[in-house]
């Protein structure tokens, strides 16, 4: 029996909050609440057709698609950003490392643990299952059918 997309949306958002990354859930909530801007062709009487702007609510399937896209974007791309930056720092700037200083705590943070790749692969598998169960795999496309492109940034090794 297919899963209810709305229940899946709630499960993902709840899990994000439980995992201490609730700000991602808040971003998703805000986007769902804002809806989708669309243009409509309006004809009143014999006047020419006017193109007007309106807002539509996302369907529950679209909401789930949005949730999964956002989660994957943060999980996959954020890591690639850092990998590319640290590679660039070593290759182009000849520094030993790049670090992030958390200004609130005054401490340097390790952005990603060594378990990160495994965690992402498990997440991608679950996203695939959710998308399959809710019939939205095709709409998520390559994002879930394969691991994203290898990290690149500025192709430091090729220049």
């Amino acid at each position, binding site marked *: 029996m297919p899963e209810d997309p709305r229940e899946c949306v709630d499960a993902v958002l709840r899990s994000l909050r439980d995992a201490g990354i609730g700000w991602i859930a808040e971003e998703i909530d805000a986007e769902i609440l804002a809806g989708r801007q669309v243009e409509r062709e309006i004809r009143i009487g014999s006047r020419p057709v006017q193109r007007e702007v309106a807002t539509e609510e996302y369907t529950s399937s679209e909401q789930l698609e949005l949730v999964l896209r956002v989660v994957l974007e943060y999980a996959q791309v954020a890591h690639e950003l850092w990998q590319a930056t640290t590679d660039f720092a070593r290759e182009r700037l000849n520094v030993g490392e790049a670090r992030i200083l958390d200004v609130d705590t005054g401490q340097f943070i390790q952005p990603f643990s060594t378990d990160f790749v495994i965690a992402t692969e498990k*997440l991608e598998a679950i996203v695939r299952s959710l998308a399959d169960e809710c019939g939205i795999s095709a709409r998520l496309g390559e994002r879930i059918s394969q691991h994203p492109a290898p990290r690149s940034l500025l192709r430091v090794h090729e220049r």
Partner: protein
Amino acid sequence: MNADLAAGVQASIAALGVAAPALGEAARVETLYEAYVACCVIEALRQLGATCEVRGQNDQPSPTLVFRTKPGVIYSQGPYTFIFARIGQRECELHTDLRVVGRSRVLHEIDVVLLDRAEGLRCRQLAIHPKHSKAMFLAECKFYGGALPLRIGREFVGLVSECQLRTRTIVSNVASDNVRALAAGHKATANFTVSPMSQSRVDEFVSWITTELRQVLG
């Protein structure tokens, strides 16, 4: 919802939270993106023939490149680095997350900014903030999972109205027609879908920066 699937969702997201302290706060993810965009600017400088060096708060070469999660001052005594760049006789400094004085003498926070070297030296010496008029390039960097909210465009418009310089851009991994229109209406440029997942877009972005910097540094 299927109990196994629900448990799998919870477990995989919990594992993500543990494995990625970078995702613990939105500000940390923004920092990752600012760092990435800064690297694109450095690459553009290099393509123009610049020599680039990481410098610490004491203006000496640093073995570590440091990005901070919140805007700070150019005369910070804490761990802080910037890029010193030299192109021919021209010297400049590339900073991230820096407070800069705008036209109204109000402080603004700029994600990535290229400053005249003399202004950097003057400000560190006097413990004051740099002026917007001494900046040559600024980039607001926005990393979002979904759509770019319109308020981001409004904030950017406010920033560019305070900073009169040739090259002002909003850079994001996602796109927004509305934000692009707002930027264009204020003589600024939107560079969207700039992400390590799209090498072609990164190449285009670096090429665009190179063209712009050639004008301002020429």
